[in-house]
């Protein structure tokens, strides 16, 4: 991995993100005797976080929109990656199995790289 960040900056990221993650995980565990339950309204909102975040992480890795003042916005993608990703998505949907999803996706990507 090449980066312009200094080792110190990278360690600051790791420590800060790690500490925040720990505090998030801890949040309700010590206080559950005092506060009985998280409000259902909050839970009703929180339940969408994983789906929204993972989708927002993954889709731009396959599709991107390039905007320029002269032309209409154009959707760009790598055909081999998009095909491999689409088939892997079907596998993920059907099996909910991480290993199967990665295996099928990589096989198709490699197959396409050989063909093209």
């Amino acid at each position: 991995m090449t980066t312009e960040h200094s080792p110190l900056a990278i360690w600051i990221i790791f420590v800060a993100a790690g500490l925040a993650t720990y505090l998030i995980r801890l949040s309700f565990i010590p206080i559950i005797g005092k506060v009985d339950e998280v409000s259902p309204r909050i839970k009703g909102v929180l339940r969408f976080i994983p789906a929204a975040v993972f989708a927002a992480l993954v889709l731009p890795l396959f599709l991107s929109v390039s905007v320029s003042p002269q032309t209409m916005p154009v959707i760009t993608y790598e055909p081999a990656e998009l095909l491999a990703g689409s088939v892997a998505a079907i596998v993920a949907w059907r099996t909910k199995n991480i290993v199967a999803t990665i295996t099928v996706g990589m096989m198709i990507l490699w197959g396409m790289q050989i063909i093209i």
Partner: protein
Amino acid sequence: MVGMSLLLFSGAAQLAVIDLIGQNAPVAVVIVTAIIINIRHIMYSASIAPYFRRFDTATKWVAAYFLADEIYAVSITEYRDPVTELRSHKLFYFGAATAFFTTWLSSTTLGVVLGANLPSGLSLEFAIPLTYLALLFSVLDDQSTEIAALVGGAVAVLASSVPLNLGLVIAASTGIVAGVVIDIRGGQFPKVDGTDGPDAERSSTTEVGEE
């Protein structure tokens, strides 16, 4: 990398952090992104906390460190299963944690040792989007979460040129709002764990993909 695995102990956030560091995103943006990705652990903490009620304080604080997706998933499934009677919530949790933690650390170490020698022509970095895909589909429980994902993903694509990688924050927030709106319109807000909503009985029989 091994240090990161120890400090973060969170696959999805670690992948995003590596990705953003590689793109030279500002330090604050990387940290905020990791927090956004891991904010879902609040739900895990809230839902598993009652089962930890009888642990002593030190055990609770140690247990919190291990509350990663997989350990939470196997533990909460076991705790909620009315058939199996667990002799010890503590032993089950720390057993799962030990198995997952040692696998995670040894795999990371292996990756550090072997990673640099792997040929780049294999496009192994493509495993990262594939992993996110698998994680994404494992959290789609019903139509509202599917719409939250669809909206979040679409906005993320459109917002990908927004500076400082803020597109992710905008997209995820929009997706969450979309999901909540769908639940409110369907008269099933707040829906919790697929059972606690006001229309829980009706919704659990009409929806596909309920576990």
